[in-house]
């Protein structure tokens, strides 16, 4: 009896253990999901009853997204499931990577300036041009520079949505206390001069605050590096070690060391609480700052000489792995979500830029700009923007890699030339390994 008990018990235990080990380490093979007709087959978008939209609700936009979705559902009779797919663009990309391996793809997904290209390169995003024709999307209605940010190999892989440029925000009271004119600095050299005045007039307050390398300093510094005649790359060729790039890095480090620039993990709140005289941040921060600050602030172009500013933010893409009918329905949804009326609604709720040319001229927009002159800056700055360097947006992990290097020279105080040389070599290795074989 005892032996039987023991044998039975051991079988139970080993069986249970095997199950849990399987649960802990599931097989590594890819799984065939029951796919509907492959992309490219003819299908009727009217057959689609529901869509799934993955977003991180940029700029605190969940409410406005829900509002636009409700309008779409009422007009088209298609239910849209809004999924909070991550806390930021990178988490959404991480989740999409998992879905690409395991099926259950969304129909519409938010893709940022640094994530869309790798999905396009690996054929994970559907080229949109043919879908535009089928669905009747007026692609020419979108702001050209914003639309062309998603072009690769004669095709477009997303449409602009939560698009931004970096802005220079400044506290007018602190500016006045330092005897500075009511405008942003025209060049970085001018800012360096103003920094001393700001420190003197506003003790214990940073003249300028910017995010650290984990929170898009790499995006903001890109404009600065251009003003010094440098760049992250010339197409696929890294250029971190050119004289201009090194000079920009040394200037950034010098501004931190002299106390003109503070690197913060929450610069928006630091500025909003009056703990910094100025701020480098996205236009996407404008809505929140306008709502919460208790002082008057202005916005200005990023310091020049121009070009010293780039576009950023995110667009909406469609996975290539969903069937044609769903792709067409998804395209209709994106077209609605980013149409003139809705981009105006979204812009006014968040501070992001309107993505339609016509939106810039609507009565609603003009009235809004009249009331909110700070919002005008981003639109006027748009014509000065340049496309981002490949090393940041197209090279896998580029933004994070550059951000980590910038942390080393700002908060870490390491030698700029040494850090940038390592960064140059790392980037070159990734390009040769991951990009060149696919081009």
């Amino acid at each position, binding site marked *: 009896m005892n032996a039987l008990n023991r044998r039975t018990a051991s079988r139970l235990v080993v069986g249970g253990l095997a199950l*849990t080990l399987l649960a802990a*380490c599931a097989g590594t093979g890819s799984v065939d999901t029951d796919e509907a007709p492959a992309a490219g087959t003819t299908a009727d978008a009217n057959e689609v009853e529901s869509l799934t939209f993955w977003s991180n609700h940029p700029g605190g936009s969940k409410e406005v997204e829900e509002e636009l979705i409700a309008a779409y559902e009422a007009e088209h009779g298609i239910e849209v499931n809004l999924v909070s797919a991550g806390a930021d663009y990178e988490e959404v990309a991480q989740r999409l990577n998992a879905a690409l391996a395991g099926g259950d793809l969304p129909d519409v997904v938010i893709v940022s300036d640094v994530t869309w290209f790798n999905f396009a390169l690996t054929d994970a995003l559907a080229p949109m041009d043919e879908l535009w024709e089928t669905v009747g999307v007026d692609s020419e209605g979108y702001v050209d520079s914003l639309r062309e940010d998603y072009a690769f190999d004669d095709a477009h892989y997303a449409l602009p949505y939560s698009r931004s440029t970096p802005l220079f925000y400044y506290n007018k009271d602190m500016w006045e206390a330092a005897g500075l004119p009511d405008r942003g600095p025209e060049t970085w050299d001018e800012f360096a001069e103003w920094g001393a005045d700001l420190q003197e007039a506003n003790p214990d307050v940073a003249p300028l605050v910017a995010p650290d390398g984990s929170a898009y300093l790499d995006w903001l510094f890109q404009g600065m590096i251009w003003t010094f005649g440098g760049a992250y790359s010339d197409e696929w060729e890294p250029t971190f070690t050119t004289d201009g790039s090194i000079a920009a890095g040394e200037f950034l480090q010098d501004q931190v060391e002299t106390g003109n620039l503070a690197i913060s993990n929450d610069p928006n709140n630091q500025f909003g609480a*009056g703990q910094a005289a100025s701020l480098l941040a996205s236009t996407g921060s404008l809505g929140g700052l306008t709502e*919460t600050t*208790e002082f008057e602030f202005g916005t200005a172009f990023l310091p020049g000489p121009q070009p010293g500013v780039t576009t950023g933010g995110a667009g909406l893409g469609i996975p290539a792995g969903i069937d044609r009918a769903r792709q067409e329905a998804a395209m209709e949804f994106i077209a609605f979500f980013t149409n003139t009326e809705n981009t105006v609604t979204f812009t006014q709720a968040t501070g992001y830029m309107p993505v339609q040319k016509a939106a810039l001229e609507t009565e609603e927009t003009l009235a809004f700009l009249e009331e909110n002159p700070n919002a005008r800056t981003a639109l006027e700055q748009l014509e000065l923007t340049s496309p981002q360097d490949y090393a940041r947006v197209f090279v896998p992990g580029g933004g994070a890699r550059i951000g980590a290097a910038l942390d080393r020279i700002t908060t870490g105080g390491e030698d700029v030339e040494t850090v940038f040389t390592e960064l140059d070599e790392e980037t070159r290795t990734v390009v040769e390994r991951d990009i060149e074989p696919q081009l």
Partner: protein
Amino acid sequence: MLIVILVVALPLYWILAAALKERPDIYTVPVTWLPDPVTAENFSTVRTGVDFLDYLRNSIIITVMLTAVQVVLGVLSAYALAFLRFPGRGVVLMFIIAALMVPSQITMISNYALVSSLGWRNSFTGIIVPLAGVAFGTFLMRNHFLSLPSEVLEAAEMDAAGPIRTLVRVVLPMSWPTLIAFTLITVVNEWNQYLWPLLIADDSSVAPLPVGLTQLQDAEGLTNWGPVMAGTVLTMVPILVVFLLLQRHMIKGLTAGAVKG
């Protein structure tokens, strides 16, 4: 000792203080250590800003289920590996140790593929089953079981107690401190699960608190840290309660002797 207390207590105090402050007071320089005025507004913002009660319910379901599964399977597996003779015992143990060496992130994509193909996405099953592996618990409990005095086990065998009876009546009563430590570690681990539930859950019907509370943050805009801190406090409280309850039993277990001289 004072430094250790400060290092541990100061961040916790700061979280609580910030949760009770009005928005502008959180950012004042110099720092205000006492909230003045004290406000509960941040806590109500958490309730209205996200589906807090849904996320709380989901966290409780996920944690209770996973803890129960892991403790039961961990104890049974450990007992088998410590006291029962069966073919391949060494191989099973080797697999368990190997599983301990594999970071969970490595298996995430393949787990996702499996869960997705089984139709378990956005379900408790999809979140719980892949996290139910018990390599750590099995290893911990087995090592503890091997340290128990052999006389007690021999006495149980002489009394014709079967394996299950020996486990329940003899081994477990002598193992409370380790078992409670294992339970506590499991509870804390599962309560704080983030990445896997983020990948699997689509909405507040199954997502746990750590995933839900990220909606209070704003990556590109302006995060209001008051509600974030209030959410953090509300997330910590259940775990602190569990810890305080179990800690007492853990100490009791440590002082209870099994063999009399």
